[in-house]
């Protein structure tokens, strides 16, 4: 039994990428996200501990984002191998008596929760936390247009560490921006202050209108680039 070799798409990066809103990401959640072109399984244990792993089971390569959370472990959906917080495999159901060796493990990236966002970093060393900028999650959306198109459409007043500050329907908002493969962009909308459900609904409609504008400028067929070798063709993993 050997350790899995590094993901073919792994690229180092120095920074944190906002990949999802904290709101709605409950203990037991497991979704597929991208950071720096890396396919990642982002999951939360029953006690709420967040992990971001290379989205590939060391056994037979199944995407771990299809797996299920059991207590403090993530189980792969193909053969049910269980991986603990330290990414080591603890249980191989086909051999219930076997204690798996330490070299059987998933590969971990860094995960962090702050200011209403979930963050991933693929850097070797865990980077310093992003600057404080509190926000209240409204909604995430996956847009069929690359980041520069969004930047052209929106009037961004300030930009730092993957967060854009701007005004949307007279509300000061924050947009976490995350590149997806094939020229897509995941956006995570937050307000700077707590707002009513009514305002959230209105902002959500504004965000959809923004998506339509961006997608009209950049139909995905034209913008689909070879940003990731064999990127996902399924859209089921809508930015949560």
């Amino acid at each position, binding site marked *: 039994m050997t350790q899995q070799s590094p993901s073919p798409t792994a690229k180092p990066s120095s920074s944190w990428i906002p990949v999802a809103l904290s709101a709605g990401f409950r203990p037991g959640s497991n979704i597929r996200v991208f950071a720096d072109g890396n396919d990642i399984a982002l999951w939360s244990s029953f006690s709420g501990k967040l992990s971001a792993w290379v989205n590939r089971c060391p056994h037979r390569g199944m995407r771990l984002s299809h797996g299920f959370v059991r207590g403090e472990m993530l189980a792969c*959906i193909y*053969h049910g191998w269980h991986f603990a917080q330290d990414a080591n495999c603890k249980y191989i159901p086909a*051999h219930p008596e076997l204690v798996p060796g330490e070299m*059987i493990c998933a590969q971990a990236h860094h995960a962090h929760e702050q200011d209403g966002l979930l963050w991933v970093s693929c850097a070797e060393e865990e980077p310093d936390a992003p600057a404080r900028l509190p926000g209240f999650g409204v909604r995430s959306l996956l847009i069929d247009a690359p980041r520069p198109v969004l930047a052209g459409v929106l009037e961004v007043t300030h930009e730092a560490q993957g967060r854009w500050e701007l005004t949307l329907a007279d509300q000061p908002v924050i947009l976490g921006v995350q590149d997806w493969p094939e020229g897509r962009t995941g956006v995570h909308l937050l307000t700077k202050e707590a707002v009513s459900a009514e305002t959230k609904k209105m902002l959500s409609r504004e965000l959809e209108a923004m998506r339509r504008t961006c997608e009209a400028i950049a139909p995905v067929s034209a913008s689909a680039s070879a940003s990731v070798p*064999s990127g996902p063709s399924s859209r089921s993993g809508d930015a949560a």
Partner: protein
Amino acid sequence: MINEIALNDWYPVAMASELKPGCRLNRVLMEREIQISNDGDKTHAFEGSRVLPLQIRYDHVWTSLGAPARPLFEIPEGEQDGRRLVACGRVHVRCSPLRAVENFLDIAHFPYVHTGILGAEDHPEVERYDVEIDDEKDEVWARQVKFFQPQAAKSAEGGIMADYMYRVPAPTTSILYKTCPARVGEWDIITLFVQPVSETTCDVWPWMALYDDETPFNDLVQFQQTIFMQDRSILENQIPALLPLDPKMETPTRADLTSIAYRRWLKRRRMFYGAQTIAA
């Protein structure tokens, strides 16, 4: 890259029942467009104007882009009297043809992927079984495979310890021999014929030869399709898409002996279409 080995083999491209007089079927075999036509009394296969070899066996149409080095494998049990022959149609899967075969050889996934049908989560253990590469026949065999099944087949009720054998007579074909619930001492046969469309896509043609006179045809097909749809959700999400032949790429255990032998055998016979030969 299509090497000679892949080119010179036989592949399924249609069901015999599709061959209506005057029909013309367009298919893709290893990225090449081919046509199957029937002029009323004979069936032909072409790539452009080039005539391809053709034969009809096991309810399917077989062809080759090259000069087949050996005859199509034999499935003697499939031609025994009294069996129901069931061609299940085509399932398109975005995965390597070799990953599709390997998944078919795997029992350890039953409790998680075919929960409540072919396996149960409280019976996940894979006992020791025998695997051999038969050099004389140039085939892979797994014998003495046992696994708990809550519902072994359409005609089975309640859980049983099912016995299996697996046979790989060609790189893109796998035959499963399984305890026959209706006739003690006999094996039901379920095969997977795989048509490589490209290195990362394939059409799968399941075919069964069963001792089962009772279950309606549609139920048999439906059962097989349900199982295969569950497999497809796995197959389209394995990384890398190509089957890794470098043993360092993935982490097998004793339950994967058939898969290990299959990969070794592919490497030995230099069947690399759909395989990853160098670690990425």
